[in-house]
């Protein structure tokens, strides 16, 4: 039993790495622009297919494809989306951008369907079957690598956000867009960069996920919902929150197998999403803050 638990725990942690990458993309866009990006699912899905082309078609090393090639491509895609679709409706009620990006998602799905058909695809790499034992717990090398890539990306982003001017400007805009503008920050440009970065993260997360799971043009929808769930749990401001949210969701999903059938695993995350939305609109950070504030007094 304890061994089982240990195995489940390890697999939860490994999954959480990828979850964190895709959620951070969503959180970044929401935090800076207050736009709910429903095309996130499409970017995750396209990321998987681009990785497929690079790895299976062009025989590229899977991690070079996912980390070096995919993100810049999707950064450009994100910038394009922001300029063409999002910017014209920034002043409209939030529902407008939500529906608009939903339309973009539908289009992306269809484009993938036309190019790659509806067939389910998988990417098999030399690492796919490799595993080693940590004590008695078997660890899949591929999943570990994906986890590590996710974590390193987030750490690198954290450095970028806290150390560079651009990163600081993005954080300032997320906190108070009007004040950031007054302080001389070009918030239009920041919006564009944030959308680009968020989409790049989605694409990368999609590419990484494709190394583990099978995918088709509908792929991405449930991951986007999970990302929402994590963002709601973890809040949009902090890396720590997103990491914590990812871990909580991954644990809840993985451990749920002990009580309910595997087919209902996603059910758990959707229920957590709805409950989290209802119970704590500010996410975990606000919960902590509230506690802290009470103690202060």
């Amino acid at each position: 039993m304890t061994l089982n638990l240990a195995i489940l725990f390890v697999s939860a942690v490994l999954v959480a790495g990828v979850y964190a990458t895709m959620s951070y993309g969503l959180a970044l866009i929401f935090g800076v622009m207050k736009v709910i990006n429903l095309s996130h699912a499409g970017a995750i899905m396209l990321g998987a297919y681009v990785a497929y082309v690079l790895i299976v078609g062009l025989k590229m090393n899977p991690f070079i494809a996912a980390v070096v090639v995919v993100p810049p491509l999707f950064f450009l895609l994100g910038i394009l989306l922001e300029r063409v679709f999002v910017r014209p409706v920034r002043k409209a009620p939030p529902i407008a951008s939500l529906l608009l990006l939903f339309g973009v998602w539908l289009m992306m799905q269809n484009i993938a369907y036309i190019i790659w058909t509806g067939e389910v695809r998988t990417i098999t790499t030399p690492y796919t079957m490799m595993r080693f034992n940590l004590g008695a717990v078997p660890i899949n090398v591929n999943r570990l690598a994906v986890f590590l890539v996710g974590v390193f990306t987030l750490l690198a982003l954290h450095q970028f956000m806290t150390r560079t001017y651009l990163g600081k400007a993005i954080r300032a805009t997320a906190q108070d867009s009007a004040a950031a503008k007054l302080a001389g920050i070009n918030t239009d440009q920041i919006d564009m960069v944030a959308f680009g970065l968020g989409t790049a993260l989605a694409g990368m997360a999609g590419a990484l996920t494709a190394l583990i799971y099978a995918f088709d043009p509908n792929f991405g929808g449930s991951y986007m919902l999970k990302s929402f769930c994590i963002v709601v749990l973890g809040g949009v401001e902090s890396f720590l929150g997103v990491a914590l949210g990812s871990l909580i969701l991954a644990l809840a999903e993985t451990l749920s197998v002990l009580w309910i059938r595997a087919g209902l695993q996603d059910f758990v995350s959707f229920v957590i999403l709805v409950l989290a939305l209802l119970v704590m609109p500010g996410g975990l950070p606000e919960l902590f803050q509230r506690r802290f504030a009470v103690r202060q007094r």
Partner: protein
Amino acid sequence: MAGILEGKGVTKYFGGLAAVHNVDFYVHEGEIFGLIGPNGAGKTTLFRIIAGIYAPTSGQIFFRGKEITGRKPYEICRMGITTTHQVVRPFLDMTVLENVLVGAAFGRGWVTGATRDVRKEAMRVLEFTGLAPKANVLAKNLTLPDRKRLEIARALATRPVVLLLDEVIAGLNPTETLQTMQLIREIRNQGITIVMVEHVMQAVMGVSDRIMVLNYGEKIAEGSPQEVATNPQVIAAYLGTSLAV
């Protein structure tokens, strides 16, 4: 004069900050009660607590001697306390008449049965506030002064007992200011008690029977306009702003 609206020890914290701290107030029936204070003094927060938008951290609000703390905004409106919004919020895609109809169809007037014919009531209010010629104009096409007037008209259509006016004068030109001051007096003459937050000193000093001054969320003075204007604490709080009428 009987007390109609009363607050005891009203306190509201946001995070660790006190927006309103331990404020007592007492509004008499039929008076115009002014609420002033520097920016961030907690005036709008206090309004929102009365209107039921925020629940106070502690303290109680009484309306006609009955506690209404923590009631929902629509319940409070139906009981007879209607609030206008500092940043005017008309229903933009509705006409002026339709905007006022919402107040007439859902406010206290309808609930108590005092408003039988909703449309007639709405027209009566439009006549009273001078908006009747613009009844069929879409609210999004109104100028700011008209929007402010519509905000008052919509609230009046609910047939309030107490009307909370949040900065309905700020931003108006001198003529419009005088018009609105007159409107406020006329509303009071119909027997409606008025509590108003206002930045324009001349206006609030001119129409109020009594004034309460908030600073950093605490009450620092209360009394007639003259008493308040000569209160040293108030002068200190407003240092740099001219209180001279």
